[in-house]
């Protein structure tokens, strides 16, 4: 064992990169669940974004166009789920699982001719001398734009949900859709828009995997990142900043796992791979045992179909 080979500064810098895709997907899913919809198709939307982003970036040799394409692709496939659950009133759990399976298969089909290609590089932002600062420089000022975008997105979602009228309506729809309908809010419309946002975020998260983190296209490359994002939303008890903290925690575990392996540490990697889910289960147990903590509770209408009566 040689812990000395693990550099904490590099560890933190790389965990931010590792956390960004799940953070993007999680913040999207958080908004979707706040609106009362449980979309288990995050994995499928992520990998669709990953392949779409990769293909467009390779074709145009522009990573940013690729990311834009991933956003559009993620939102488009999420509309499949939206039509099924919001218009045809299909079961959300089944539809979400179907979306994941569809996304995995569909992306494998689209990506066949892109295996083994190197995508255009996504440049790191240039902060000039700031990057050269010791410790702070590599951690804060040596990343590509999406790392910063993901943090800004967390801030924006947090502010919008809590301090804007639109955010309040979205929370109301998720908390009690019958009440929201009685007050004249368009429950279905709010939910479809939320699902599209969630799809776009998941798509972007997927593109980050295939364009920056890995970067190449392989079949099934999201490897459970979508599921971690779903677990993260619960772990964060539906709060944006906690999602950020959770993403960095989970990201840290992923990076640490690689580092420990490299350092020859003799703990089976499976334990670390399991840990995000184990932590999420623990959080669920704490949430359900501590009844007084309403602040941790799920949105009241989460996962329930809305039928407008009368």
């Amino acid at each position, binding site marked *: 064992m040689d812990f000395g080979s693990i550099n904490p500064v590099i560890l933190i810098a790389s965990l931010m990169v590792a956390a960004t895709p799940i953070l993007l997907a999680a913040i999207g899913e958080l908004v979707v669940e706040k609106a009362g919809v449980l979309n288990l198709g995050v994995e499928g939307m992520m990998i669709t974004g990953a392949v779409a982003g990769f293909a467009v970036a390779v074709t145009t040799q522009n990573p940013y166009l690729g990311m834009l394409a991933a956003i559009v692709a993620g939102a488009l496939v999420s509309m499949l789920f939206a039509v099924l659950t919001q218009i045809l009133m299909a079961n959300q759990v089944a539809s979400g699982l179907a979306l994941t399976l569809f996304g995995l298969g569909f992306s494998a089909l689209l990506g066949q001719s892109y295996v083994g290609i190197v995508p255009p590089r996504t440049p790191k932002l240039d902060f000039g001398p700031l990057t050269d600062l010791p410790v702070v420089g590599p951690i804060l000022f040596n990343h590509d734009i999406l790392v910063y975008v993901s943090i800004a997105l967390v801030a924006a979602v947090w502010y919008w949900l809590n301090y804007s*009228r639109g955010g*309040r*309506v979205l*929370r*109301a729809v998720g*908390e*009690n859709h*019958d*009440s*929201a309908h*009685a*007050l*004249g*809010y368009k429950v279905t419309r709010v939910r479809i828009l939320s699902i599209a946002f969630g799809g776009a975020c998941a798509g972007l998260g997927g593109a980050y995997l295939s364009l920056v983190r890995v970067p190449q296209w392989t079949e099934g490359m999201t490897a459970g990142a979508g599921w971690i994002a779903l677990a993260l939303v619960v772990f964060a008890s539906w709060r944006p900043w906690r999602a950020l903290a959770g993403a960095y925690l989970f990201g840290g575990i992923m990076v640490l796992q690689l580092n420990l392996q490299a350092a020859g540490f003799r703990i089976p990697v499976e334990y670390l791979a399991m840990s995000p889910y184990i932590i999420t289960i623990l959080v669920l147990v704490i949430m359900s045992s501590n*009844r007084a903590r*309403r602040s941790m*509770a799920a*949105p*009241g209408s989460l996962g329930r179909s809305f039928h407008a009566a*009368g």
Partner: protein
Amino acid sequence: MSIPLLSLQGLTKVYPGVVANSDVSFDIGEGEVHALLGENGAGKSTLVKAIYGLIRPNEGQMLWRGEVYAPSAPAQARATGVAMVFQHFSLFDAMDVAENVALGMDNPPPIRELSAKITEVSNNYGLPLDPHRMVGDLSAGERQRVEIIRCLLQNPQLLIMDEPTSVLTPQEVDILFRTLRQLRSEGKSILYISHKLEEIRALCENSTVLRLGKVVGRADPRKESARSLAELMVGQVLHTPSREAGTPGKMLLKVTDLSVASPSAFGTSLKGVNLSVRAGEVLGIGGVAGNGQDELLGALSGEIRADSEAVQMDSNPVGQFGPTARRAMGLLCAPEERLGHAAAPDMSLTENALLTGAYREKLVTNGFVSWSKAKTFAESVIKRFDVRTPGPHVAARALSGGNLQKFVIGREIMQRPSVLVVNQPTWGVDASAAAQIRQAILDLAQAGAAVVVISQDLDELLEVADNFAALNGGRLSAPRPVQGLTMDQIGLMLGGAEGETHAAA
């Protein structure tokens, strides 16, 4: 005559297979408190939804101060000056009072200003409210205040109130009525929907009675008796349940110092409950919902186990027995929730009859169900209790609330219980079916059973019970004879003011 504030002219709303409203016309004047009366399913809710812009009528029109008024959405109704307090509150538990109010407004001011305004208006109308509290933590009365304040902040001309008092204690009803009278004196109109006739007689100066979607009468409620209004609503002469006075027999059910924790997260645990019921006696237990009613029924039925001696039936300790063992001894229960607790919604009436009748009616032999016997039993319940249904093969879900209630109560009564416990036996049941159920309960007591009726309908309890006790926060007050009990005393009992005396005894 001056132009009415709102005039409904020939409103008709047809749903596939049902005519909810047919040619309904009436006027509401400025500063008038107008009552809309009717049984369940008479079309009251459909009508107010049309006024509030939630649905559009198929025919007819509405005039607001003489101008055509056809709201396509609640926002438009609110802009015109119509506000509505819903029967089932349209509130959001995980949000605070100010946010809830803001959601009901079209152009809410920033939360800080709004909070100040909520405090001001709520104090002006005698409905104090803290804008920063979570709605999920409020009592039913306080939740209703949130709804009312939400309406008042928009300065409406017409306030629609749908069954506003169904969840309130008598004291809370008084506070509400004071507020409503203050609103009237300010020139605002109120459309008041209720089936509690005494309230309407105390508050309203005009009324329209609906039956099966049609207007069947208009009356000044102050000049009518509650009975004549009820008969107008039902369309037939009402039979008041009655029985001959009898002398109570031996003690059949005795509960001593019963304390059990509630199985549900938001339930109320029972604390030191004492009660006793003799043969031929009806004990009425009142209380606002959520004060331990479900837990008390569970502890009596055997769904919640208690100390062996805490529940005694005919001097036998049964506290540790489960429902089946208690049923076998003759202790039968009918819980409040019809669909999902008293009856399995997707199962047929025969299957539902089997569920509780299996043992006492011997519907199972050597572990095998005798379907023909079960069917006969279900048919006999349907026949005796006048359950309107095509037959026992119909799913419980398909029955109307009143008919299913007749079935689940009848199913227990037909098993000749020696002790019967019912929770909310006539909740959501129309007046004639309710009278029928109450009569059956009285007949059962007359025949020598001990009966416990848990209900939130005080009029019902006063009608059927010999003794009255109140549940408050899981404690049961000392029972008092119903004869000579005043509403004020009952209110105090419901508020828990007398709860301690019995705990000490």
